[in-house]
C-alpha cells in the first residue's frame, strides 16, 4: 500500500513539475540530488565539477520531464540522464582513449573488501584508474549496463569494453589487496 501511495505521490509531483511548478521541482531535486551527486562523483573526481554536471543533468530532467513515460523507474530515468551528462562532460574535457588490446578473460577475482575500508577510500582507488577503465568499470559493475550498451554509449566495440573491464578489475584487485593489508595491519 505504501509503495502504491508513494508512486501516486511521485506521479502527482511529476505532473506538477511538468507544469513548471517550482515547488514540485524543488521537491524532486531534494529527493534525488544527493544520490545523483554521488553518481556523478563516480565519474568525475572534482566534486564542484560533479555538482555542476549534476545541475546540468537536473536542468535537462526538468526540461524533458514531459517525455518521461510513467511506467518505469523515475530514479532510473534521472540516473541515466546523469550518466550521459557525465560522459559528455568527460568527452568535452579531453578525448577518451581506450586500449585496443584484446585480452582473453579467464581469470577469476576472489578478493573481497574488508568491511572497515571506507567509501572514500574505494572512491579514491576508482579515481586512480585510467579514464577508459574507470568508465567501463563504473558503468558495468556499479550501474549495471551490459557490454553492448556500454559499447553503444561510449562508441567502442564490445570487445574493447570487455578488455577495459578486465584491466580495470586487475588494477583494482591489486589496490584492494594493498588496502586490505593496510587495514589488517592497522587493526
Amino acid at each position, binding site marked *: 500500500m505504501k509503495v502504491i501511495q508513494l508512486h501516486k505521490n511521485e506521479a502527482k509531483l511529476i505532473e506538477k513539475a511538468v507544469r513548471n511548478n517550482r515547488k514540485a521541482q524543488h521537491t524532486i531535486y531534494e529527493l534525488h540530488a544527493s544520490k545523483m551527486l554521488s553518481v556523478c562523483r563516480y565519474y568525475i573526481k572534482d566534486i564542484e565539477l560533479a555538482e555542476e554536471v549534476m*545541475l546540468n543533468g537536473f536542468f535537462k530532467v526538468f526540461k524533458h520531464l514531459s517525455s518521461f513515460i510513467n511506467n518505469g523507474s523515475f530514479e532510473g530515468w534521472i540516473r541515466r540522464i546523469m550518466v550521459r551528462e557525465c560522459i559528455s562532460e568527460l568527452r568535452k574535457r579531453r578525448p577518451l582513449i581506450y586500449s585496443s588490446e584484446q585480452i582473453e578473460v579467464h581469470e577469476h577475482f576472489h578478493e573481497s573488501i574488508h568491511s572497515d575500508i571506507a*567509501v572514500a577510500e574505494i572512491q579514491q582507488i*576508482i579515481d586512480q584508474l585510467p579514464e577508459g577503465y574507470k568508465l567501463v568499470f563504473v558503468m558495468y559493475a556499479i550501474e549495471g549496463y551490459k557490454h553492448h550498451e556500454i559499447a553503444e554509449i561510449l562508441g567502442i566495440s564490445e570487445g574493447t569494453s570487455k578488455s577495459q573491464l578486465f584491466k580495470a*578489475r586487475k588494477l583494482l584487485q591489486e589496490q584492494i589487496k594493498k588496502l586490505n593489508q593496510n587495514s589488517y595491519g592497522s587493526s
Partner: protein
Amino acid sequence: MAPVKFEEDIKRKLEERQIEPSQEAWTRLSDRLDKDKHSGRNRFWLLSIAAGFLLILFTVIQVVRSPEETIPEDNYAVESPADNKVQDDTVTDATIPFETNTDLVQGTVEAEEVQKSDSKSTTVSEKLATHLPESDVASSDQKDMLNEHPKDSDKMEITKLYATNELDESLIQEVLQDTQTTSENQLDRETDSLLKAAQKELLMDKTMVERTTLAQANELLMEVEEEVEPSLKSRVYEVFKDGYKKVKTVVAQRNN
C-alpha cells in the same frame, strides 16, 4: 562470467553513499530554469508577433489586390444605360463601337455638345455657391442640393435660396439669365438633334422600301421572260405588226 566479490562490495558501499550538494546549488538551478522560462516566453511572443505581422501583410496584399479586380465592374457600370437622359447623352467613347450607324455617331457628337452646355450649368451652380456668403449658404444640405441636382432644379433652388436668404438681387438675376439661356440653348440643340435623327430615319425607310419594290418588279419580269418562250400568238402578232407597218408605208408613199 563468474561473480567478482570485491565488485559487489564496491557496489554496495557506493550505493549507500549520498553526497549533499551545496546550498546554492538549488538557487543556481532555479535561476537557470527561470531564465529558460522567460526565454521561452520571449520566443513565444516573438513568434506570435511575427505571425501577426505576416497576417497583417497578407490582409494588406488582399485589400490592395481587390480594387484592381473591381475596376472593370465599375467601368461596366458606367457603360450601362441609366434612367437619366443626360447620362445617356454622356455615354463614354467605349460605347461608340457598338453603334454602326454613322448618323447615330453624329448624334452622339451633338450629345457631347449638349453635355458641354450641361457642365456650363453645373459651373453656374458652383459659381453661385462661391459667390454666396458663407454664413448664408452655411447649411451643408443646401450645398449638397446644389451639387446633386445642378441641371434640373437650379432655378427652384435659387428661388428657394432667395426666399430663405437675403442675397444680392443683381447676382441672382445674372445667374437666372445664365441658366435660362443655357437651358434654352440646350433644349434647342436637343430638339434639333432629335428632328435630324427622325428625318434621317424616315429617309432611310423610304429608300429601303423603294429599293425593295423595284428589285421585286425587275426580278419578276426577268423570271417571266426566262420562263415564257416566244409563242405562236407572239409570232402572229409580230407578223401582223410588220404587215401593218408595210401597209402604212405603202399608203403614205401613194399619197405622196
